[in-house]
């Protein structure tokens, strides 16, 4: 019964498709019940059947070939990725050694109270901002412990474990791996040497962003003499100066004033309009094009904004490259400003929207990666995504290896817990924000550029590094904030993570969702929710970690 109906429909279509005469013949013809007619119809049906079958077989064969091709392609891509990672690792190692060699020369002016060093990761991080803060009161947990030998997963760009008693300057020397990781490993230079304008910028006061509220929060990370400054925080500070400069320019430049506000709001609106795609292509095409159009308009600088040195906004000094679109020493300030606005809008979207519903981060991440990898928005061949990272570093420090206790003032500062009018924002709000930022970070750093001609501005190893930094926290210092960020980074990104790293990713997930919470001394809700996530992965995807 049920089998017959599609057949019938098929023959229907055929008659419908043929000239009207056929229909009439069918109805009026004398032979419509004759055997010959019947045979004829059978014959036609058989021919049609064969045709369909052949077609199906052809398509099937093609599909098999396609899949095979895809498989080979994927395999090749994985290999390439692996090689790239190893190269990066090698470069980082070399760099680390170099830095280590250098650091010994530096005297330690202050006995640093920071109790210990995390072996694989983290190193420099807290040192970068903290010592500058209140060097005397900054220590993390007071709970100085034995060196953790976290058997963590292979960390790309991992640091060689250092003795826990290492004098602090050792750590302040090293650069955050993330910053280095995704740059073409250039010969190491002192960071400041190129940034001529930086000195100028630094004169201005240093409202170290992040917190930005009512003068409370952290006092800026003023580079102290012995330590290398937190480059992310510097960029963040420079961006604030840029914003102010734009406001000043607008006072005298009518063309700029007329356009800048509209462009800013237009970008914010477009980022806000991005919606979850659920696998449908082209859903956010209009928004993406709109953003590109606005940035190109800014790039063309018809409103004649001042030119500025982009090196104030990148982590590493850059040299001109062969055939690069933007090789000059300057870019229009309106363009840099709008890139900043775009990054800001994305971060705000992560905080406000993805905090409540982490799945909404994904389309924003796609848009960020696509936009900041556009060839005409690169500077000297490399993405300006450093601006985005600087913001991440300020709003979600745990991604960069910063740690702190939620029970202490300084701990909260280090964790990026916001203050409003001198009061800590409620816990719920903080954790929401961390959720959105964790998901947002994953949404940018786990993008697949294998099919793209463009270069991935934030390759997956950055994700791996951030995860490793959290996982390698000594048990006594594990915070709820870290658990929340970690959960958001993993949830609904496990598949992409595994696609990139295979079994290594599964090992990392096991460490993140089982070992890490098991090590935490206090089984808070945030800690437990990591284990619940492991349960959910098992139930929903069949991924067994335990």
């Amino acid at each position, binding site marked *: 019964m049920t089998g017959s109906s599609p057949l019938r429909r098929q023959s229907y279509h055929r008659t419908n498709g043929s000239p009207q005469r056929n229909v009439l013949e069918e109805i009026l013809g004398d032979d419509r019940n004759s055997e010959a007619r019947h045979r004829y119809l059978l014959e036609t049906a058989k021919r049609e059947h064969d045709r369909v079958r052949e077609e199906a077989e052809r398509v099937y064969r093609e599909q098999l070939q396609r899949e095979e091709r895809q498989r080979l392609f994927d395999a090749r891509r994985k290999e390439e990725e692996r090689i790239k990672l190893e190269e990066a690792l090698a470069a980082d190692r070399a760099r680390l050694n170099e830095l280590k060699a250098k650091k010994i020369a530096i005297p330690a002016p202050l006995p640093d109270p920071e109790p210990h060093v995390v072996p694989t990761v983290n190193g420099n991080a807290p040192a970068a901002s903290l010592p500058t803060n209140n060097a005397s009161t900054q220590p993390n947990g007071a709970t100085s412990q034995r060196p953790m030998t976290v058997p963590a997963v292979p960390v790309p760009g991992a640091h060689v474990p250092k003795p826990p008693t290492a004098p602090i300057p050792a750590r302040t020397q090293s650069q955050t791996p993330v910053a280095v990781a995704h740059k073409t490993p250039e010969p190491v230079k002192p960071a400041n040497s190129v940034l001529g304008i930086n000195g100028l910028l630094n004169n201005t006061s240093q409202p170290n962003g992040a917190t930005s509220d009512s003068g409370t929060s952290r006092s800026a990370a003023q580079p102290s003499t012995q330590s290398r400054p937190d480059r992310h925080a510097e960029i963040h500070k420079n961006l604030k100066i840029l914003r102010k400069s734009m406001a000043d320019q607008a006072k005298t430049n009518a063309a700029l004033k007329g356009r800048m506000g509209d462009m800013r709001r237009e970008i914010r609106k477009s980022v806000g309009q991005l919606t979850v795609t659920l696998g449908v292509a082209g859903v956010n095409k209009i928004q993406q094009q709109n953003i590109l159009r606005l940035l190109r308009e800014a790039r063309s600088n018809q409103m004649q904004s001042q030119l500025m040195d982009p090196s104030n906004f990148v982590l590493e000094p850059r040299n001109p490259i062969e055939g690069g679109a933007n090789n000059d020493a300057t870019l229009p300030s309106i363009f840099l400003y709008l890139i900043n606005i775009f990054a800001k809008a994305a971060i705000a979207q992560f905080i406000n929207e993805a905090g409540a519903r982490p799945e909404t981060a994904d389309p924003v991440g796609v848009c960020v990666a696509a936009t900041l990898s556009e060839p005409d928005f690169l500077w000297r061949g490399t993405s300006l995504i450093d601006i985005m990272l600087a913001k991440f570093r300020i709003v979600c420090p745990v991604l960069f290896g910063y740690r702190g206790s939620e029970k*202490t*003032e300084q701990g*909260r500062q280090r964790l990026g817990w916001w203050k409003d009018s001198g009061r800590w*924002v409620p*816990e719920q709000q903080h954790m929401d924000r961390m959720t959105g930022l964790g998901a947002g970070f994953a949404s940018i750093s786990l993008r697949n550029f294998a099919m793209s001609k463009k270069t991935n501005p934030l390759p997956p190893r950055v994700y791996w590094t951030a995860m490793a930094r959290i996982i390698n926290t000594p048990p006594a210092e594990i915070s709820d904030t870290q658990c929340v960020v970690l959960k958001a980074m993993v949830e609904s990104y496990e598949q992409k993570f595994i696609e990139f790293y295979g079994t290594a990713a599964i090992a990392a997930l096991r460490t993140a969702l089982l070992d890490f919470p098991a090590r935490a001394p206090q089984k808070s809700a945030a800690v437990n929710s990591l284990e619940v996530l492991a349960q959910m992965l098992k139930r929903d995807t069949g991924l067994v970690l335990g």
Partner: protein
Amino acid sequence: MADLASRITKPSDAPAEDAVAPAPAATEGQGNGTEEPADDGVNKGLVETTYDVEVKLSDLQADQDSPLYSGVSSFEELGLPKSINDGLLAMNFKKPSKIQERALPLMISDPPTNMIAQSQSGTGKTAAFVLTVLSRVDLTKPTQPQALLLAPSRELARQIQGVIQTIGQFCDNLIVEAAIPGSISRETGVQASVVAGTPGTVMDLIRRRQFDVSQLKALVIDEADNMLDQQGMGDQCVRVKGMLPKTIQTLLFSATFPDKVMNFARKYAPNANEIKLRHTELTVKGISQMYMDCPDESKKYDILCKLYGLMTIGSSVIFVKTRDSASEIQRRMEADGHKVSALHGAHEGQNRDALLDDFRSGRSKVLITTNVLARGIDVSSVSMVINYDIPMKGFGDKEPDMETYLHRIGRTGRFGRVGVSISFVYDHKSYEALSKIADHYGLDLVQLRPDDWDATETKVQEVIKSSRARPDYAPNALDK
């Protein structure tokens, strides 16, 4: 501010009036960081360190007036089973809100006692009664109806069904059905331990003997003031209750409980524990309430589109009076690049479900609707609510509709998140209406003007930032 506990009245000393005990003056926690750090149990487990300064108590206590604050640090402490607790963790619920902390122990204790509970929008009422229901259900009888939850619209019933399923995702054998038109099989009838539905459909099912109510243990009425007040549904609710076992535990929940409904509610749920709020406490402090001064009605469309550049917006809901303007706004906003669902009475059941699902899943981020969705709908990422038309009620829309205003703006600012509501005024009548609403709830609405968008943007940003910090922030009163 008195905390909620002091206002829980025992059935024995139920007050005759709605009079609320005067609040003991707040003595602690307002000093903004001048007190010495001390330990009162709120921050137990505080790490004593030589170097880092502890978080000051005042900061922790600052939350105490918030409906989200609670002294209980986990759901486990409330004695919920692990399977339920895991479900809460999966939803990123970390600790109970105040209504949950206060009401849950009363509701899940034995013998079961009735409850009438009021709490602001977005403070966890649904989770509170869902947890009660889940703790009452015997999962070894998965197809035997044991709890019934009633809501005023099919959307809300489906939403409650979804919440039960999500919180109960680790409870084996939990079957939840929605008793709404077109959802229960006519052949089998209700085959679930928990049923969320609308009163009309539930009544039909019981009458047709397709819903075995003999072992129901709990009856929840969500949006209770609306359910018991409305002529049609009030009747239906009474009739449904008449068909249920006399011993059933009745739980009434709403953000609003006008006095006249309260008396009826006490008859409907006799000897109930009560948790109530004063009407100046009803607005959610995290929602920045503003109004847009439109030069005339025709400008409203363009102004609406401009709003989306002023601040970061997740999803948004636009309330309009007529279907025609809903369609027109949809057309304009889609032309401006927005993905829009327009949902109103013209759409039929399944179609409405699909439109709302688009909005819930994030396929569309703007929801334009008439009043059908003012109540209860919870999409956590809604960060802006627009009263394109001020809600009115009565013959010829004479007077402003206070309750509807409150429920509408309550679609944002869910669970302590930042939210913005913007009401459009353009003539004397709309201005008057909004003024009355502001007076009623003691609001200071911030005025926005559509002539200089740079300035308006700055103002909006300031308002959002400061209302996050100081609930009573109001740079600009409504009266000019």
